[in-house]
């Protein structure tokens, strides 16, 4: 679709600069938010920010409690789930708030912006975009979750091997990470792409914006989906890790 600026565009491992920069930006937003919240800790008079962060932690803990087999594992997965929830929420919302792209006609071959790609994207080079609207990023995160879940399962190798007696589980090993990543990517990318399509609706008589109500409705839905998908990705992560933890006794 759009011509992203890439490092090493002709090698086997091109690096999408926009996505990397937006990931770092989302991480910085999360770090600064949590730093500011942590600097104003008070037991006697909790501020609004502290209440908010405590509510998020409690929310995540409840989510992990429903899906993980034991209290020890809930404590183990809580930092990861909390970080994942906040990071995905922020990075999904970055794309809802704004997307910035420049229009250029000059191809920059060493950044991977070739004339052919520019013609296909109508000269649009995105600079500020949701990092989760990129398939490689979400599939990479899903793959990371897959690795963690198998790391958790291989702590008890015999039980891990025994559950493959059912061939359905072998198919699940492929479909689970695939749908896990594609779900997030599809939702965020479709949201942004459709905003772009709605914005290209012409203005009637140069006065009446026909697309405005449509845009408002879709923005509202997109914001809702951004929040829900961060939640869904995190709860599926705890679910996949919890399913693979065979060594733990259930205590609820």
């Amino acid at each position, binding site marked *: *679709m759009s011509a992203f600026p890439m490092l090493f565009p002709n090698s086997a491992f091109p690096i999408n600069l926009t996505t990397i920069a937006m990931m770092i930006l989302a991480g910085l937003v999360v770090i600064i938010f949590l730093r500011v919240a942590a600097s104003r800790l008070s037991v006697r008079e909790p501020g609004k920010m502290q209440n908010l962060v405590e509510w998020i932690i409690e929310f995540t803990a409840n989510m992990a409690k429903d899906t993980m087999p034991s209290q020890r594992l809930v404590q183990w997965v809580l930092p990861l789930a909390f970080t994942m929830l906040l990071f995905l929420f922020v990075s999904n919302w970055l794309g809802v708030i704004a997307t910035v792209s420049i229009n250029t006609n000059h191809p920059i071959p060493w950044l991977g912006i070739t004339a052919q790609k520019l013609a*296909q994207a109508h000269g649009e080079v995105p600079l500020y975009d949701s990092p989760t609207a990129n398939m490689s990023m979400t599939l990479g995160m899903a793959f990371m979750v897959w690795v963690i879940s198998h790391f958790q399962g291989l702590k008890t190798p015999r039980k891990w091997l025994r559950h493959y007696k059912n061939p359905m589980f072998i198919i699940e090993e492929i479909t689970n990470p695939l*749908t896990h990543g*594609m*779900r997030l*990517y*599809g*939702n965020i*990318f*479709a949201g942004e*792409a*459709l905003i772009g*399509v709605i914005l290209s609706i012409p203005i009637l008589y140069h006065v009446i914006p026909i697309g405005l109500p449509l845009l408002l409705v879709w923005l509202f839905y997109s914001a809702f*989906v951004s929040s*829900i*998908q961060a*939640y*869904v990705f995190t*709860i599926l992560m705890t679910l996949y890790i919890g399913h693979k933890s065979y060594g733990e006794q259930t205590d609820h």
Partner: protein
Amino acid sequence: MVQALYDIAVALLLGLSAAGSGVGDGLVMSKYVEGVARQPEARGSIFSSALLGVAIVEAFPVIALAFGIIILFTKGAL
């Protein structure tokens, strides 16, 4: 000719996935209403699981929408 084939492909993709997910969403929400009618005090926890189910069912037409938009605008060059 070729452009029309892409249009038909995208229309079929979106229409079929929307029909399927409509049935799925209907099933999830009808079960949610049944559950709330049977046990009104459990509304909160049922609602969160129903929302999760809707989000999971709803993901597939949205994935189809993303791929439809990609196919429509790149005309199969991807």
